[in-house]
């Protein structure tokens, strides 16, 4: 009776390969989680505790004062008003930029794929090329142009810049979406007497809601996380959170307050992280759509 008579379901076996697989996954998970964990515990410690050099130790008594300081008292140079200014600046920049770029991108995608006007492929090609080229080549002339129309260092200016530089990706995603919409739908609506805008607002836009959500999410995280454009175009009064964060952390005089720095870092990361964790699959759909079809 070395081996039981095979009968019924095959008994489950735990193989060495399986154990190795889980070991790999757990080690990887540890690597990916460690920075988040470190950020959180550091932000809850006092500076005295941090000076002990036990970066991974749990705080003896969680202390939220670093969070309060980060939000409303952390200093950039000599100004100590906290990162909250940057937070609201980022909100003011991101929300209209996302709304505008998604709307224009949707119109572009719809017009390019379902109406195919003269020059459509040229325009699309230009946009895609523009999306690949490093911003550095555009920056200086853009600054001068914006200054000429009095939009440099203004909220409207940075929004305009985000919309313009967001167009390639957003247009690409919407074009790929509308290409998969049967052309007959557009034809049927034309027989019914609807024109370009009517078809867009009454038929295409309601249909594209899932895509709008995906693209908005992608644009939201992208614009919220932007550093370069905000640094160059926003102006001192409108600096986004990422720029303020970097200023707080990297331009401190005297001893660095690591707990405040980490609290400010978490505060900056929390909005895109919330978008990511709340939207889950949508975000994943967005980045895969953007990557695979780019």
């Amino acid at each position, binding site marked *: 009776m070395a081996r039981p008579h095979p009968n019924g379901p095959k008994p489950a076996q735990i193989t060495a390969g399986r154990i190795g697989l889980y070991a790999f996954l757990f080690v990887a998970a540890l690597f990916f989680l460690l920075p988040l964990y470190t950020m959180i515990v550091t932000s809850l410690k006092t500076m005295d505790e941090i000076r002990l050099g036990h970066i991974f130790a749990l705080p003896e008594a969680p202390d939220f004062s670093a969070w309060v300081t980060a939000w409303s008292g952390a200093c950039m140079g000599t100004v100590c008003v906290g990162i909250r200014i940057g937070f609201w600046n980022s909100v003011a920049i991101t929300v209209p930029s996302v709304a505008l770029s998604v709307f224009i991108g949707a119109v572009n995608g719809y017009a390019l794929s379902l109406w195919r006007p003269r020059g459509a492929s040229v325009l699309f090609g230009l946009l895609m090329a523009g999306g690949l080229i490093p911003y550095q080549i555009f920056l200086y002339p853009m600054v001068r142009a914006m200054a000429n129309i009095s939009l440099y260092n203004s909220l409207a200016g940075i929004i305009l810049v985000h919309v313009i530089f967001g167009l390639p990706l957003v247009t690409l995603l919407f074009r790929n979406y509308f290409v998969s919409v049967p052309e*007959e739908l557009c*034809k*049927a609506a*034309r027989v019914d*007497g609807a024109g370009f805008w009517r078809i867009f607002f*009454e*038929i295409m836009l309601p249909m594209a809601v899932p895509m709008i959500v995906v693209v908005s999410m992608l644009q939201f995280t992208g614009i919220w996380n932007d550093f370069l454009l905000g640094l160059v175009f926003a102006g001192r009064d409108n600096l986004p959170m990422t720029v303020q964060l970097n200023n707080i952390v990297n331009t401190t005089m005297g001893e660095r307050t690591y707990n405040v720095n980490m609290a400010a870092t978490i505060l900056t990361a929390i909005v895109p992280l919330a978008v990511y964790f709340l939207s889950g699959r949508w975000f994943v759909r967005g980045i895969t759509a953007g990557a695979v079809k780019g």
Partner: protein
Amino acid sequence: MQSAVSIKDLKIAYGGHTVIEKMSIDIAPQEFLVLLGPSGCGKSTLLNAIAGLQDITAGEIWISGKNVTWEEPKDRGIGMVFQSYALYPRMSVRKNLSFGLRVAGLPKAEIETRVARTAALLHLDKLLDRRPAELSGGQRQRVAIGRALVREVDVFLFDEPLSNLDAKLRNELRVEIKKLHHGLGNTMIYVTHDQVEALTLADRIAIMRDGVIQQLGSPAEIYHRPANLFVAGFIGAPAMNFVEGRIERASGSPVFVSNGLAVDLSGHSFRALTPEGPATLGFRPEHLVLDGVASGLPVIAGRVSVVEPMGADAVVWFDWAGQSLSLRIMGDVTLQPGDDMAPGLDIAKASLFGSDGSRL
């Protein structure tokens, strides 16, 4: 009488490629015209041009006595049904039906009456508040037909409306469309690649190939007197048998000669004077009679290779002079592969084609 739809010297070309070359066709009021052909023959392009969804290169299109060549689709007095149904996905059936009327700005009461009438006609009453995603394929296509009907226009265009349905639904809806045509009496132009649909629905069929109409005629004409080899081979399943040979005039009456076969053609009605020279003899599987000797017809003897029983009838394939020919018989067959047979050919029903492929 005035034509319902009239196409004059139509040419459509894009990207340096001519899809339709100088086509003219007149469609009578209340006529059911089917455009039939293999994919890529230009039939859908022609339908889209009639609808105003396809820009044309040259020519004119007239609908109900009006030159609509430059009109927008909505102003042409047409309704259209598409292969993919093309229902507006985020609108209920009711909204789908009324969208065109709302765009046109019709009074609410009028819209409601028309939608109700159409829904009743197509048995859509209970489905009016559903979304397209909640409908079966057959129901969706009925909504698509309804969307054309509510417009209350003279001409309906169908672009392969049944191709996405399974065989059973296709048969049901085909009958429904035919009833609709009888009841409404509108002009209908119907594009398909399915010859059964064409033969059962059409008053006239236009068979197209490479943007040119090969033959325009009633289903019976097309089936029994195909104008050329292409039409003969395209219509009918199994396909027409073709035997290549020569027409000779040995002793007065013309004779078709091929591989020891000699068929007296005096019973065949030629279009013009009997020519001599190379020709192709075409006959359908049902133009062969099982026992040729007894019926006194010219015999094409061969050996059975395959028997395909189809229920009501059966197709017998046999080898003759190195080629495979088919024969249709009603009822059950007792023949087995390997049996010898000597069927006779009813030459009066057969077709003859000249070396250019056109009917003699």
